[in-house]
């Protein structure tokens, strides 16, 4: 499987290296100005997800997916390779970004915030969610579809904000999810809760992987 990571690295070397330096620097600098670990995690996960999906979206743009398909690998292995590359990139960038944020003078988020278990789980949750949603979307609709989805989500966000002023349903929904998680956390204990969260991440990744394979197998190139 390492050969898939190697393939993506060598085919997109220049871009991965340049974005791999630029994004952690930006996230680290910007993150050091934030005082909310949750917002930092959201920003970082989103930025790193963009880089992680980059090999695929570039191949889609350059119509080079056929290159992977001509190699001795099944479509399932190709998608598994995509997930491995994505997680390798996201993890690497996260480590770099965190180091930059910690080294920035005058940062509002210290090591306790950035390296705490809660922060790590939060950023893992965002990365998992982004990757789980965006990978199948990128496979099915390509880069253009991804852009349309992002714009649609922004519009949806604006609509949600407008609706929030009129109804408390959304707020109540988010609140009830939060209370449910807190109750489960109490019931499981600290270690059990962490294990449960990690299992949920694995399940979400696996479901997204299977969906991606399903979509990839049905696409003509």
């Amino acid at each position: 499987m390492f050969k898939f990571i190697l393939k993506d690295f060598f085919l997109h070397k220049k871009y991965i290296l340049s974005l791999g330096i630029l994004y952690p620097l930006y996230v680290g600098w910007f993150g050091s100005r934030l005082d909310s670990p949750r917002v930092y995690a959201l920003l970082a996960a989103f930025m790193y997800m963009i880089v992680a999906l980059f090999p695929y979206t570039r191949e889609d743009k350059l119509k080079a997916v056929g290159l992977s398909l001509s190699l001795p690998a099944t479509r399932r292995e190709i998608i598994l390779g995509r997930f491995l590359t994505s997680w390798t990139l996201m993890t690497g960038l996260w480590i770099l970004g965190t180091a930059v944020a910690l080294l920035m003078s005058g940062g509002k988020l210290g090591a306790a915030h950035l390296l705490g278990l809660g922060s790590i789980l939060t950023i893992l949750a965002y990365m998992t969610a982004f990757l789980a949603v965006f990978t199948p979307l990128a496979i099915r609709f390509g880069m253009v579809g991804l852009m349309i989805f992002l714009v649609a989500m922004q519009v949806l966000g604006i609509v949600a904000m407008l609706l929030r002023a009129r109804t408390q349903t959304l707020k109540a929904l988010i609140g009830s999810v939060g209370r449910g998680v807190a109750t489960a956390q109490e019931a499981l204990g600290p270690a059990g809760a962490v294990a449960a969260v990690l299992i949920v991440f694995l399940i979400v990744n696996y479901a997204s992987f299977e969906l991606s394979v399903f979509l990839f197998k049905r696409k003509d190139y």
Partner: protein
Amino acid sequence: MDTALEIQGLRKEYKGFILKDISFRLDQGTIMGLVGPNGAGKTTIIKLILNMIRRSAGTIEVFGLDNIAHEKAVKARIGFVHETPAMVEDAPLKNIKTALAPFYRSWDERLFRRLSAEFGLPLDKKFKALSHGMKMKFQLALALSHDADLLVLDEPTSGLDPVFRRELLERLSGVIQDERKSVLFSTHITSDLESTADSITFINRGELVFSLPKDEVRETWAVVKGGRELGHGSLRGLFKGFRETPYGVEALTSDVPAVRRAIRGGLVVDKASIEDIMIFMDSGASHV
């Protein structure tokens, strides 16, 4: 003789185009020309062999293995050269090679270096900076360096200068000196096949016209020249296409004895070249 590639009842449906029930067989140690006009379905067949598109029906076996059920093993034995290659265009050649080589157990780095030198490939250059001929050479070097047993080439000579075209064709002939190796070679440049191919598979408008050894094509297909009566009545069924000339009518047939029985005297029968077949088939509807 063992079979390198066997296709049975292959079908692919697109909006506005259907590849209909294609069947043919490529023996090991031979070169097959997959011929047909532009849009006939040649690239569709090649993409189906590589499982780049899904088939609607039929089977494809490469060295006796189904190309989907044994996708990995099958692709390990195929070398692929495409007219419009699916490459990450802005990557340098050396990076593309480094990215792809680990996928092949039989990758021969020394052979790749030798071929790169022979072809004059600038390994530091980006793929998009290469000429069309150089792009073909690079793909061929990749295909040959992993010791592929089946070379699948989609319009490899299209847009090449005559010197490299000849070089490429000679190299293909050299490849099959090893009798385990075979070449499937799609083209609409029929002259490429005259000297190189052992057999011809002719596709037209998504349908298989014939798949025969080259010598048998020469013996079977003929251009009949005669008067306008060639296009009339019951004779029409004997011909695959017609062409009006200032001197009469020319028609393509695969059944010369039947034509001779139907028309006594006044006929000139010439062996049909592959180009003749393509031209007549393409204008098959232009009956007199």
